[in-house]
């Protein structure tokens, strides 16, 4: 008896479960496809007074120098507030960003206080680390990145490698899919990359996570036609 009454019920519930699961997966899949379709499409016209919260991912050494050259020509009143993230092992980059922000605050003579925050993140892969151990370190870095991204929820993500930016960009993409925050992701491939993209660049390009992808050498643009060739930043 128990078996007879139990079976149809459990069949029904498992059917319902499977249906729900399939529906859920379908919705997510459709949403992912929609986000990928929208990625790279320019946003609607907006007024110049509008501000966008901006996440700036600083690499190290040469990467940071390139990013600072870009920040110097960006309109700082549009891209505000600014959140700087650098690897926990890299003390120089945030220091450079602080000097930059302080010089802006000085030149504005305190009329409008510029809001900038500086944060550190665990690095997914150190230079020279093997690809095997970098799987684990990437997981740790991702968890930490998730926590930071929930706090920041940026509208614009600017990055130029190395690996530090990957977890952040993936989370920004997931936020788009879930609908937490729509962001535009810009990636500038390092000037050091002449013939081949970096691993970070390749991932963001192939997975279509980056809305706009910039390269600094014409050879790369020929190889990756969706990229924009912008000349040298240094």
């Amino acid at each position, binding site marked *: 008896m128990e078996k007879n009454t139990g079976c149809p019920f459990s069949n029904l519930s498992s059917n319902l479960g499977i249906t729900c699961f399939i529906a859920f997966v379908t919705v997510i899949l459709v949403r992912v496809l929609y986000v990928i379709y929208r990625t790279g499409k*320019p*946003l*609607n*016209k*907006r007024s*110049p007074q*509008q501000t*966008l919260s901006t996440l700036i991912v600083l690499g190290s*050494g*040469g990467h940071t*120098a*390139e990013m*600072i*050259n*870009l920040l*110097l*020509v*960006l*309109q700082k009143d*549009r891209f505000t507030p600014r959140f700087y993230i650098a690897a926990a092992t890299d003390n120089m980059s945030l220091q*450079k960003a602080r*000097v*930059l922000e302080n*010089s*802006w605050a000085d*030149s504005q003579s305190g009329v409008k206080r510029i809001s900038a925050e500086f944060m550190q993140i665990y690095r997914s892969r150190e*230079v*020279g680390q*093997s690809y095997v151990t970098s799987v684990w370190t990437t997981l740790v870095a991702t968890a930490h990145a998730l926590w930071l991204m929930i706090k920041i929820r940026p509208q*614009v993500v*600017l990055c130029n490698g190395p690996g530090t930016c990957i977890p952040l960009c993936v989370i920004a993409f997931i936020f788009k899919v879930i609908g937490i925050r729509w962001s*535009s992701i*810009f990636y*500038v491939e*390092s*000037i*050091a*990359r*002449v*013939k*081949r993209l*970096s*691993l970070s660049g390749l991932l963001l390009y192939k997975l279509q996570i980056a*809305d*706009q992808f*910039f390269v*600094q*050498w014409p050879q790369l643009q020929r190889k990756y036609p969706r990229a*924009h060739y*912008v*000349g*040298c*930043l*240094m």
Partner: protein
Amino acid sequence: MGSIVFTRIQNQVQNGCCRRGGKLSTRSCNLCTRVHCVEGHLVRTEHSVFEAVIDGMGESKDGVKGKRVVFVTVGTTCFDALVKVVDSQQVKDELLTRGYTNLLIQMGRGSYLPKSSGGDGSLAVDYFTFSSSIADHLRSASLVISHAGSGSIFETLQLGKPLIVVVNEDLMDNHQSELAEELAERRHLYCARPPTLCQTIASMDLKSLLPYSPGDATPVAKLVNRFLGFPEG
């Protein structure tokens, strides 16, 4: 003439600030890696031009001082192979015949210690691990031998200094040679590997190197603004 131009640069660097026509804008200065108040792109070009002028007159200026420094830098990396090869007698002899008098090595995280020496007609060798004033060392050098990091390469090129980049063959993902080789192809620098450095020094012709004009980030800024729907300008 030369000394006047030189003083102007020194002023800009030391004040860290330059006001022109009342307009004040900021720009990171690649001469000294500090952020300066300077007017946009122009000053950076001027920096390089000025330095190039000085460098062109380097023979006479250095001749007075009688000091021609070769500065070797490995950045924050560990690159013992480079330190070892510049410390070898072969390379030191070659530098001496080329008229250089001093060899200053920034050895970074490496463990190989060069042999300090000097006096009686041989090359004076000195070394240190890290310094906050790499820019000053670059500025006072007559020849720079650098690792292939893009930071060191562009800092040197924008100072208008002759540069030999030595590619580290031991790195796992050796993409660094790409940049050095591309810039060598465009005749902005010489590219070598530790075993070929001596030959490069012997055969190089510094007069054939072309000055590097600094890049510009405005195309990126324009595209970013257009994408986000901001009006032009």
